């Protein structure tokens, strides 16, 4: 039981820092800092992933046989902390973190051989077809239908909240392949080429003014049966397995710590009379409370990770707990950032992307993201299962009924 790093671990930390210093160019770090949406902008995230892949570092959570890094707990921790602190973009999770583990565990050899290497290299851009207009928290009530026609499924229906559907060339989706007495039965997990005729994408702007999410319509879309992952009608269990990776199993606390460091910088830019806001007691107490919350999440994530081998699923309670705390802390941080702005919290910048502006903004550049991030981050306690659903999941396990 020891939190200190061994000499080997410290050497790895130096290696990571040297890599970040060389490869994380100022324009990439700036683009990351000036992105107020939930995920990295696709061109930014993909550029960073290709750099990571060249180093062999694209998939720290994957087992080594599939191209993972084979890192120890300490190495994964060091990587997350250092890359977040340096302001590296987050690699988009829909491929590597979400559908990747499902294909690894339930896919055919052909699916693994084809999709996993392309995923590592960022040759495909994935989106997630789960929610529907009538199926949010009650995901198992989904109605998008896939009807067998020879070697194809014919898909009709609609998916919503589809992040980066307008950028993606591939979607993994839960679709209904049969009607069964129990709604969780009769669902299948399929991979859809977004260029297939019959697919249309409608943008949905967020309250922060960002185009990140979409509604996707399917009109007689033909998907080869070989694109089904696992058995027909068993998709719900694969989908739940994926959600554990979506919600937990990583080190989200590193990102939160980096956000808190940025807020502290901002609180040294903004002043209260003759002193920086950072020197006031009210800011210091909120900063400490946030840091303590992040410490607790970090240690919880370390405990979860240390009990797992890479590629294993985190379990429902652990992943729900990590998701809950991460989303709540993220929201409180974004609220703190807006408070730091004072009257500048009124200023609205509608242009996107913020890292490619036509004119100098009227407020400090590093303050531009605070307001849209606060607004957009309301989504954290809703997507991936609302906080209320997470509490239902935890309660079911701990109460045992």
């Amino acid at each position: 039981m020891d939190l200190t790093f061994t000499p080997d671990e410290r050497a790895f930390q130096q290696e990571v820092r040297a890599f970040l210093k060389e490869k994380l160019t100022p324009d990439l770090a700036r683009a990351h800092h000036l992105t107020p949406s939930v995920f990295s902008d696709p061109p930014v995230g993909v550029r960073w992933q290709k750099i990571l892949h060249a180093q062999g570092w694209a998939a720290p959570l994957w087992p080594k046989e599939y191209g993972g890094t084979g890192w120890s707990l300490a190495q994964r921790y060091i990587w997350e902390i250092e890359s977040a602190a340096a302001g590296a973009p987050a690699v988009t999770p829909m491929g590597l973190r979400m559908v990747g583990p499902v294909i690894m565990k339930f896919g055919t050899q052909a699916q693994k051989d084809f999709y996993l290497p392309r995923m590592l290299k960022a040759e495909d851009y994935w989106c997630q077809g789960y929610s529907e207009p009538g199926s949010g928290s009650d995901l198992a009530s989904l109605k998008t239908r896939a009807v067998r026609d020879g070697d194809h499924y014919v898909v009709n229906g609609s998916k919503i909240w589809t992040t980066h559907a307008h950028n993606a060339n591939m979607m993994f989706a839960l679709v209904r392949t049969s009607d069964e007495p129990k709604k969780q039965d009769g669902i299948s997990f399929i991979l859809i080429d977004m260029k297939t005729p019959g697919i249309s994408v409608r943008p949905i702007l967020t309250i922060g003014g960002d185009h990140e999410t979409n509604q996707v319509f399917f009109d007689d879309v033909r998907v080869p049966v070989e694109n089904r992952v696992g058995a027909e009608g068993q998709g719900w269990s694969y989908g739940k397995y994926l959600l554990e990776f979506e919600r937990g199993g990583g080190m989200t606390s590193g990102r939160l710590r980096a956000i808190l460091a940025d807020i502290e910088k901002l609180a040294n830019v903004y002043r209260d009379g003759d002193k920086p806001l950072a020197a006031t007691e009210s800011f210091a107490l909120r900063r400490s409370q946030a840091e303590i919350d992040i410490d607790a999440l970090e240690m919880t994530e370390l405990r979860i990770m240390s009990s797992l081998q890479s590629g294993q699923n985190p379990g429902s309670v652990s992943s729900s707990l990590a998701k809950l705390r991460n989303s709540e802390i993220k929201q409180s941080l974004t609220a703190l950032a807006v408070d730091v702005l004072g009257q500048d919290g009124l200023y609205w910048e509608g242009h996107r992307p913020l890292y490619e502006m036509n004119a100098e903004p009227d407020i400090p550049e590093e303050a531009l993201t605070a307001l849209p991030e606060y607004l957009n981050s309301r989504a954290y306690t809703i997507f991936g299962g609302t906080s209320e659903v997470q509490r239902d999941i935890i309660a079911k396990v701990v109460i045992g009924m």
Partner: protein
Amino acid sequence: MDLSYTDEQRLLRESANNLLAARAQKPGATDLWKEMADMGWLALPLPEADGGLGQGIVDVAIVTEAMGRHRARSNYVAGVVLAGGLVAALGNDAQRAALLPGLADGSSRLALAHAEEGARYNLAHVAATAKKNGAGFALDGRKIAVLGGDAADRFIVSARISGGARDTGGIALFVVARDAKGVTVDGHATVDGAGAARVKLAGVEVGADALLSDNSFAAIQHAYDRATAAFCSELVGLMEAATAATIDYTKIRVQFGKPLAVNQTLRHRMADMSIACEEARSMALRAAMHADDQDARARGRAVAGAWAKVSRAARFVAEQAIQLHGGMGVTNELEIGGYLKRVVALDAIVGGPDLHLRRHAALSALAA
């Protein structure tokens, strides 16, 4: 970095839980302090050269967690981590040899007499005085919240040899026998049943060999950090037990024709209690691993942050455990109220979450 327990630590956890679970079935039937001595728990953090086992706070925390879980209320931490820890840190060979083997085998009880009225958890607040008296000293002052003072045969007493009432310099620690002339011990019951005393010193004469150190502040602060870390783990055990008891109760208590546990409001409350337990476990473990950091600021930040999180979480869990037990939770007929009493006691001993949040902020500002 390694977050796994050793085989020895796993065994310690198992034996602590087994012994204390059995004991909880027949409270008061056996002498807990003697059992702790027999199990080697008193010796656990003391130096090997002085009859101890030389283990760290991570090991002590394994024992305190089991105590929290099985409602074994004692002044274990106050005796071996606060009083014993200060003797181990500051005593010379003769002093350690005279005091620690007896503490380790249970034949002697030590208590730290440090807190005073008006100190409000400022560890440098020492108004008691030590004046030169021949080769030795004469001690005067009044001490409160002397944990285990009702049962101690010797006190470790802080008294000022120089400086103003809250100066960090000039604080000395002395070994004072309970039966020394001028010592008045006023033992009193405590909310948690563990017992404490108020100690009055009126011209108490001690020899030069009673002086542990004339510059003790840093060691006192370290001892309190170590004790606070151990208390965090006690609260983790306590919270998990209170949560488990609440879950069990709501499953069997039927109202409106169904068990309480089917109601979503209660289910979410119990989910929040479980989340609080996990966060507290994380922070307690973190504090235990930082409890012997040589960097006092890093150590203080880790411990203050942990207490701010854990004691607030424990208060939430203990209060909600009573709430979900309904009227029965407020009675002495169930053990549920006992959990809250221990949370109240520990907050009174080391200060509540707001105090530690302010300490964390102050130490963070120094680090910046």
